[in-house]
């Protein structure tokens, strides 16, 4: 447990020292959202309809570039070998790293969302539900990102490859996330899609730490 705490503290500290990464991620998120009215037109009625979808696509795109760094730095600086030597189950350590990554990008994205929602003329009433869905959805996305980041360690290409691997697997999160948000916005019952979103993320929780740990071991061989 102590080791997990140390890993979490280290990752958060590194994130804090290199805060520009998080800032860049959030700025990217905001910029994608700002592009939409410019491309679609400033008509608020149209924007309200597509806003939940845009929020989710922007969140997905904004987490993608963060994924590449999840293990790349540990690998380059030798920290990866130390992670593997921690006398605790490796999947647990992976989970700790996902939590740290979520605090560094998922949480800030979730907290920025209401602001952007207002810019897209979303009613504030359902916003709490949208934020909850985004918080859980980004956690799921980061779990997929962890697998992809571990798989591409040592590969000739990084960023695009991660996107190709993550995006098809991210479809269920996108579908149920958008459906939850839309239902919440319209004041309908958001529980059915939200529960599916939860189910998908829980299933990922049962798979990804082990798959990631396995490919980290392969990468370190």
């Amino acid at each position, binding site marked *: 447990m102590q080791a997990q705490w140390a890993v979490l503290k280290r990752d958060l500290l590194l994130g804090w020292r290199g805060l520009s990464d998080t800032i860049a991620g959030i700025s990217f998120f905001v910029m994608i959202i700002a592009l939409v009215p410019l491309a679609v037109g400033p008509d608020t009625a149209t924007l309200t309809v597509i806003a939940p979808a845009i929020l989710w696509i922007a969140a997905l795109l904004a987490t993608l570039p963060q994924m590449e760094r999840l293990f790349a730095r540990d690998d380059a600086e030798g920290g990866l070998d130390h992670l593997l030597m921690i006398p605790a189950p490796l999947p647990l350590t992976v989970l700790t790293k996902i939590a740290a990554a979520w605090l560094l990008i998922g949480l800030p994205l979730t907290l920025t969302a209401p602001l952007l929602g207002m810019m897209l003329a979303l009613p504030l009433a359902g916003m709490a539900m949208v934020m909850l869905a985004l918080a859980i959805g980004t956690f799921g996305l980061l779990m997929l990102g962890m697998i992809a980041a571990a*798989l591409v360690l040592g590969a000739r290409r990084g960023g695009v490859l991660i996107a190709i691997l993550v995006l098809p697997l991210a479809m269920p999160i996108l*579908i149920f996330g958008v459906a939850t948000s839309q239902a919440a916005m319209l004041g309908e019952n958001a529980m059915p899609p939200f529960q599916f979103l939860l189910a998908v993320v829980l299933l990922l929780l049962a*798979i990804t730490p082990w798959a990631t740990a396995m490919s980290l071991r392969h990468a370190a061989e």
Partner: protein
Amino acid sequence: MFDYLANPARFQRIANVIRPLAWLIFIITLLPGLYYAFFNSPADYQQGETVRIMYIHVPSAWMALMGYVLMALMALFYLVWKHPLADIAARSMALPGAAFAFITLVTGSLWGAPMWGTWWVWDARLTSMLILLFLYIGYMVLVDSFDREDRGSKAGAVLLLVGVINIPIIKFSVDWWNTLHQGASVIRVGGPLIDASMLIPLLLMAAAAKWWFIAITLIRMRTLMGERRLQSRLASRREGGAHD
């Protein structure tokens, strides 16, 4: 049985027998299949002659799905028993599997143009087949991205296992999202809904697709094994040269 087949030389001997046999069965099922499909089966009372696209479309879709599942099975064998032959098999199946997914999309689109009045609709089955094609592409790009070949194999194997667990979920979520496709009509509770005059050419074509897949996979496996042997020969010669 796997231990028995795991010997590459023995596998090659067996494959050498199966390969021509696979081509033979392919031809034997393809020719009557095509004959029935194009000339000796009824046109659909609603779809007219376009129903004949189904005889290519449906077997391709079956093979695209089966190909991925087989690859995942090979990935499991590779990760558990660490035998390179399973990895070679998975790599060999990727391209024909992706080709079947692509053919499914193209024929579906050709059929959709007169039937649904549009080349592409965001229908659940079309979309999941598209995602399956993306999964194939992801695997092929991933295994080819490493300088160390075994690293690519292992990464690819883990991806296949994660992918195969996710396929039902993707399928479900996309179904939930939207569907206007034909329901299942061959494998369903209470027997096939489809008439025998259409079922026979469909099954013949499905068998042809299957045996083509087997033949192509075996050819690609032989090529990959030869390539690896060549690489190791070259490597040992280079080492030998260093001693001179």
